[in-house]
């Protein structure tokens, strides 16, 4: 679905490479989290997929990016938007309208779709994002989480197969952030949408994503299923990347030779890990207890 072939890019007026020698392949239906310190090239990676680079932000571009089999250099930003929907950090700066409905219709009207088609797609997009009830609201009255879900709906109204998001929850409170991630999970599981999200909240990433990419200084230095990446817990902390606390805990239990299995990614999994450890110990104890009798 997305393929990076040895991609390097440096912005105009900047000698350093923003990303260098990126090789990556993302399949249909994946839910990929991208994490890394600021300035690691995460946003650049996103902008390479949605065509903002090289069509809007200029610079030196090496290698090729293929989205749905097409080279992003050869298709325009508008064409790419049929394949890739984009959501950015600040919902306020992305909104062009004062009413939710109009915001979602904006992109559809830009592509000169007939009114009934717009109506259909708008209804679908609102439903997919789970915000049908907000349809007629004024955008000024929405909470941050709601606003960001409106921008998601506006992006998916163009029926893209891929959705890329650049730190969409950084301005939101925990509840708003969770709402956004739940919406993304729905889009991924029920509608098979491929999702790429840049995010600092590692807890949400490990709970919701299937694959984690770690970037540092323009390179992808780790890439794999979430649990596999989290195993390199020490390395992540060294890079200045936070780890979910349940992972830190599991690491400690592994060091104490109490646990040897997979890393849990959320509280539920961690709970069952601990219960197994403690019940195991109890059973052992009661067995030995029995043998004593």
């Amino acid at each position, binding site marked *: 679905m997305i393929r990076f072939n040895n991609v390097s890019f440096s912005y105009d007026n900047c000698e350093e490479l923003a990303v260098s020698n990126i090789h990556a392949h993302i399949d249909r239906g994946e839910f990929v989290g991208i994490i890394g310190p600021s300035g690691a090239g995460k946003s650049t990676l996103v902008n390479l997929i949605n065509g903002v680079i090289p069509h809007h*932000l200029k610079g030196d571009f090496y290698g090729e990016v293929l989205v749905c089999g097409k080279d992003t250099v050869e298709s325009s930003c*508008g064409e790419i*938007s049929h394949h890739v929907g984009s959501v950015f*950090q600040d919902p306020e700066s992305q909104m062009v309208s004062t009413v939710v409905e109009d915001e979602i219709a904006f*992109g559809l*009207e*830009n592509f000169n779709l007939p009114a009934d088609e717009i109506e259909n797609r708008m209804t679908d997009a609102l439903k997919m994002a789970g915000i049908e009830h907000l349809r007629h609201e004024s955008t000024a009255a929405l909470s941050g989480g709601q606003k960001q879900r409106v921008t998601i709906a506006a992006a998916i109204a163009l029926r893209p197969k891929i959705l890329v998001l650049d730190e969409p929850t950084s301005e939101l409170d925990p509840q708003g952030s969770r709402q956004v991630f739940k919406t993304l999970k729905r889009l991924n599981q029920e509608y098979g949408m491929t999702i790429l999200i840049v995010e600092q909240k590692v807890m949400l990433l490990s709970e919701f994503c299937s694959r984690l990419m770690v970037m540092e200084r323009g390179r992808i230095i780790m890439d794999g299923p979430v649990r596999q990446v989290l195993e390199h817990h020490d390395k992540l902390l060294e890079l200045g990347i936070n780890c979910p606390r349940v992972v830190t805990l599991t690491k400690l239990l592994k060091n104490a030779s109490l646990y040897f299995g997979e890393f849990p990614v959320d509280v539920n999994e961690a709970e069952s890990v601990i219960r197994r450890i403690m019940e195991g110990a109890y059973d052992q104890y009661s067995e030995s207890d029995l043998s004593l009798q």
Partner: protein
Amino acid sequence: MKQMLEYVHGNSIFHRLNPLIKLIWAFVTCVACFISSSHLFLLGVLLMTIVIAGISGVLGRAMGVFKALLVLGLFLMLFQLLFTPHGRVYFYILPGVPVTDLGLSFSLLLMLKMMAALSPLSLMLMLTPMNELLTAMTHNLRVPYRYAFVVVTALRFIPTFSQEMDQIMQAQRSRGHETDTRNPFKKVRVILPMCIPLLISSVRRVETMAISLETRGFCTGPRSCRKKLGFTLFDLLAIIIVVAVLLLSIAIG
């Protein structure tokens, strides 16, 4: 400022009026008020604006606008009063600065003109969603979409920027900067540097917006429109009234 230009959600008869009519109404009234030199006509227009605001349920907001315009108007009036020495002298404010009947009448006219001309524009913005305004401008008035979009987006961002300016001023006050001086010249000197953070953050915003537009096919080709804005009988009636007002203003002189 923010309150004068922001759309107020509603479903009154004036909310539902074709935006083109509202646009024409606002501009025609504005022009008519500038042409007219009749106190009575201007008062009539003001009254009409108040009635419309009342029916549309935005009277409170409109009163705020009137108040702001009134303050501005009184300033104008005072200046005009001081610089019109012709006519019968009532009394002297300062030695050599008379208040005359002509001065009084003329300055009052000026104030009314400004209030009557500007309040319909503000009311129009309160009663018309941005999107409809955009449609009326591009489809009916044939303004190129790109330009119409710029105008409407500028209006849309005014509340955002005014909030941001508040934050910036508060941030500086927290660092002991005194912005609450009464002296207007001092105030300008104090506030001017604060436009720098506003400018920089708006440049950042515009950049995000540009990218967001780019990824949603902005200006890639011909553009369709979701809502067809039809004309109703009431629209017809409204346009007749507007034309009548214009003729009346010319007739009264």
